[in-house]
């Protein structure tokens, strides 16, 4: 499979805090990759750098072999990399159809469209795939938390991305809603979308992805299939800490 995203020696410090240290990984076209790590490990920082919101201190990020560091967030979206947000940031004050129409005005959506681009048709198709079609005329402010997450994913999909970064898509959702979003992610992946997912809910994530990368205090400590990762002693140590010596309490 062709390499879609290459990250080499990526480092980022906020003052004295080293948020990322020499992180490197690759994502192939069509892959489903998970990124896990304890709170504060640097996962969201990684997304913020990949999507152009933070500049890194050093390193290289290649999308389709093209260097995207230093590009503005909207330029990166137009090159095919789109993200969603850990804390949903809805377009409040708009209707669902309007909110999803915003990305259809992006350069990428326009140039990828046929000569007679059917904007509304595109929006309806995306909302239909994601399962929000009946909410198309609803005010964004009236949507539930899980619908807002679906809307955020719809917004990202309307830019016609090659690779989608999902930042904790399951947080705050019930098992049923999690199941629904998982299925939707698999569907989109089957249609050719590459996905990278940050998630804390390991049980759900492990079922969804083919490859997992573990970040701990800004460093990548392991990478492999979900089966290998959950047995990796370094990962267990990062999540649960070392077994403490028995001091005879209790």
């Amino acid at each position, binding site marked *: 499979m062709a390499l879609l995203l290459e990250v080499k020696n990526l480092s980022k410090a906020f003052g004295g805090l080293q948020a990322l240290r020499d992180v490197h990984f690759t994502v192939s076209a069509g892959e489903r990759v998970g990124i896990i790590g304890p709170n504060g490990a640097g996962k969201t920082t990684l997304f913020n750098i990949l*999507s152009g*919101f933070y500049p890194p201190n050093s390193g290289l990020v290649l999308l389709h072999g093209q260097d995207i560091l230093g590009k*503005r*967030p*909207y330029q990166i*979206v*137009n090159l095919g990399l*789109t*993200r969603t*947000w850990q804390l949903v*940031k*809805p*377009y*409040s*004050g*708009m209707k669902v*159809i*309007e*909110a999803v*129409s*915003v*990305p259809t*005005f*992006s*350069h*990428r*959506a326009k140039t990828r469209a046929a000569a007679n681009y059917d*904007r*509304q048709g595109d*929006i309806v198709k995306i909302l239909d795939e994601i399962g929000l079609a009946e909410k198309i005329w609803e005010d964004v402010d009236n949507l539930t938390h899980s619908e807002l997450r679906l809307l*955020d994913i719809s*917004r*990202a999909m*309307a*830019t016609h991305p090659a690779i989608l970064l999902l930042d904790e898509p399951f947080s705050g959702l019930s098992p049923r809603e999690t199941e629904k979003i998982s299925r939707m992610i698999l569907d989109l992946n089957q249609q050719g979308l590459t996905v990278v997912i940050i998630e804390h809910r390991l049980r759900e994530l492990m079922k969804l992805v083919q490859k997992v990368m573990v970040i701990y205090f800004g460093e990548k400590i392991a990478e492999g299939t979900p089966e290998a990762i959950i047995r990796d002693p370094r990962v267990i140590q990062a999540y649960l800490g070392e077994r403490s010596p028995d001091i005879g309490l209790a």
Partner: protein
Amino acid sequence: MSLRKILSRLFIYPPAGFMILAGLGIYPAVSGNTLHVEILLLAVIYAIFAMSWDILTGYTHEVNFGFAFFIGGAGYVSGACNAFLAFPPALSIPLAALGAGVAGVLIGYLTLRLKGPYFSMATLAFAGILYKLAFILYKITGGEEGISGLQSLSSGPVTDFYLTWGVMIGIYFLLLFYSRSKHGTILKAIRADEDVAQSSGINTAYYKVEAFALSGLLAGIGGGLYAHAQMHIGPVMLSGSLSVLVVLLAMIGGMGTIVGPLLGGILLSILNEALRVVEVYRIAIYTGLLIVFIYLAPMGFVNLEFVRQSPWLKRFFLGKEESHGPSSGG
């Protein structure tokens, strides 16, 4: 765009707007009262100010507290072109408006990263600088006196009025069309969350500067019209009190609707003049009423909840929502 398409677009715009435009158009023709025509002329110019303020602040919610910068700045440029270079209003007003538009690009670019009170203070500062300059450069600006004896717009108050009225109608429909096109939608997206708008692939900086430039350009047209209609431009048109008045007119009418600032600008200006029967207390009563209005309708009268909830009132004051989502034109 075919005539049929234009007519079907007009149909979706708010009837309240058409009624006030028509009312303004009929009154001077049937009434011979020159004073009333002069009052309506000023009301029309204030409505231009309020609407051009609304396209930036009503849609992005970044409050421009220095709008006099564009109004007075263009007024002075237009006045100076006429007084010293003998340019006719037909040339001096477009020149001044163009200057205000370019200033809009510059200030828009400089304030791109500012939000909330910081943005407002920056706009306030730019207007403050221009206000001081009007006194420092007294050889050109006439200092406290301003520039007098400018050429009038046309031969008489009634033709002055109809010229201004025509310009206002043009600006009103331009802004309605712009705000309902992709440009308005993107500005609303930036208002909700600029980061998310960027991760929708939108060059948010471009659209913010564009709105700033449009807002400045149209205010510049209004400022130029004012200078020539009054045949005078003075530092009052650069003052903070004018900036605040424009904010109030647009806010009380209803921000982010274009038609609200139109109604607010016209009706409140007429109210202000009507209060001249109690001239001694006029300012006190007028500002008191504005405070009461803000208290009753903080988001403006056309944005009141009962207007938005009632299908008839909503259709009347806000127009019809487009069935096909925002168009890509504009």
